[in-house]
């Protein structure tokens, strides 16, 4: 193939050279112009063929690269990217999923500002995030530091700490429902018999103002193992020499943590906090299964943003309104991510 092309290029080049010779002998100005035009066209042809070969080699490389990406990207574009764009548009419409779409401008967002159920969902979500993020971070860091030491059965402890994370919510919330059962559960039984809490003062873990606390407690228990692994990875990146140097300077365990471990883990902590915050804003399944009663309906005291998105979309088919709530969720996540990145930049500066 390439030889064939090379031969053609050579042929065209000799043709052009012949024309040049003719050109020198020619006196008629019109003939001269014609010959020049022909020569140029032949030369153009030759360069095109030459470039084509180059382009096709480059094109082949591009094609190979794209062929690696395509299987994933096509699925990703169709099932994720398009819906993402669609979500932004929907928030500004009144759509019920079947009738023609009508645009509503900012009406959905205006309505949200006075929607008491939405405001309760927003407040509850924020309380949950503010409670859960620092607690989980501290618990997972503490666990990681302990499990990074050379202790017996370390692998076993690490594995066990990860169990709650891999366990399904449906199964594990059923157990929690029993353990924290207000009248029959072992936790309240302990409070009653060991700590002498009066029968009528026993906490009702899954209702009223206590429910957000129970959600937080459960989340810390379920997710600390996961963030522990991330912290373990971070701890393994700290060089042993730093600790040796610290030891020579007479630093105690706490000082080593305070002045070596903690600063060295800054990037990890940053990552953990960002991920935790984003994940906490997404809370839904936990709330529905832990506090949702039999039918999975949430009371005002336990409602969260994603529940309100779900309810508006799939119970009332108010798709525009639901997407507006989704945009609020997105804006919050974006805001927190941006703030945290700014903060990180400042720290590094």
């Amino acid at each position, binding site marked *: 193939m390439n030889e064939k092309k090379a031969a053609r290029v050579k042929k065209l080049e000799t043709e052009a050279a012949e024309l040049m010779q003719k050109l020198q002998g020619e006196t008629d100005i019109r003939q001269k112009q014609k010959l020049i035009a022909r020569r140029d066209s032949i030369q153009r042809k030759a360069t095109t063929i030459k470039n084509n070969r180059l382009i096709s080699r480059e094109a082949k490389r591009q094609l190979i690269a794209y062929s690696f990406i395509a299987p994933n990207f096509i699925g990703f574009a169709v099932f994720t990217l398009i819906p993402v764009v669609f979500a932004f548009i929907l928030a500004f419409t009144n759509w019920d999923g079947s009738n023609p779409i009508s645009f509503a401008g900012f009406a959905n967002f205006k309505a949200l500002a006075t929607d008491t159920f939405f405001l309760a969902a927003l407040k509850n979500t924020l309380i949950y995030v503010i409670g859960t993020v620092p607690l989980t971070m501290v618990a997972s860091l503490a666990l990681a530091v302990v499990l990074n030491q050379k202790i017996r059965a370390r692998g076993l402890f690490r*594995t066990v700490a990860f169990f709650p994370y*891999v366990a399904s919510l449906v199964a594990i919330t059923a157990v929690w429902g029993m353990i924290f059962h207000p009248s029959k559960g072992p936790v309240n039984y302990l409070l009653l018999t060991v700590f002498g809490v009066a029968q009528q003062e026993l906490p009702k873990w899954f209702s009223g103002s206590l429910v957000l606390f129970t959600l937080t407690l459960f989340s810390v228990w379920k997710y600390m193992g996961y963030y522990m692994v*991330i912290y373990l990875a971070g701890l393994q990146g700290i060089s042993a020499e730093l600790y040796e140097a610290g030891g020579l300077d007479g630093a105690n365990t706490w000082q080593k943590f305070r002045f070596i471990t903690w600063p060295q883990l800054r990037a990890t902590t940053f990552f953990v906090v960002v991920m935790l915050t984003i994940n906490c804003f997404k809370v839904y399944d936990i709330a529905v299964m832990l506090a949702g009663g039999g039918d999975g309906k949430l009371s005002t005291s336990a409602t969260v943003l994603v529940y309100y998105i779900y309810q508006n979309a799939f119970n009332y088919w108010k798709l525009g309104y639901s997407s507006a709530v989704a945009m609020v969720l997105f804006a919050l996540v974006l805001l927190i991510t941006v703030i945290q990145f700014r903060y990180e930049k400042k720290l590094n500066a």
Partner: protein
Amino acid sequence: MVYIILFIITAIMIVPFLWMLSASIKTNREVFVMDPFVWIPEIPKWDNYIKIWTKIPLLKFVQNTVLLTIVVTLLQIFTSSFAAYSFAKLEFKNKNALFFAYIATIAMPWQVYMVPQFIMMRSMGLNDKLLAMICLQAFSAFGVFMMKQFYAGIPDDLCEAARIDGMNEYRIYARIMLPLSKPALSTLIIFTFVNTWNDYLGPLIYLKTETKKTIQLGLRMFIGQYSAEYGLIMAGSVVSLVPVILVFLCLQKYFVEGVASTGLKG
């Protein structure tokens, strides 16, 4: 001292699971007997484990979930590692723009676009089909990002040397990159398997016919229907946990290494 702390933490982590196992072989009356509390009742009710298969179509739920999870996990590891190889080791037009599209959606909660996604799938005639769940979960941005981070850590010289030896890109991927990526692949498998197996909201939205439901939906339905049958509910829960725990135990020795080397540490 360390061991006391560890013991307490481990107890907090594991007691709910032991409670679950214990309750799964008890009668309803025995479950809440605290004084005296026994872990293994005198006459274990093993038939709780038999009843759950007849009270609800548990076998069907398990089959659906196994099929779904295996297909999603396979698609996920192959398409992700494929794309990741290209992003990490090849040059092409619009590379940064395409990769940015992946990154941007990682930060975006799925719940933000789950509604339009559902509408779109419905218009494609995919609702109430397991295929919808596969499409939903098989092409995550997270997988591509994770594998790319791992491949970026493998020296380019390795690929260059193979190219000079006349290997084409497909063979470099299959013979060099894939065998090297065990930790990252294990991590991705654990995440994908666990998430798909345990997913509740996705199937809740898409799967309406009982014969198409997954184990989480089935279990949840079961809890609703037999809310006082604690022994049965716990037996069902144990059954639903066994596969994920097994997969995790098989792959966990690569797990920390995988998380460490894929830049998940930030």
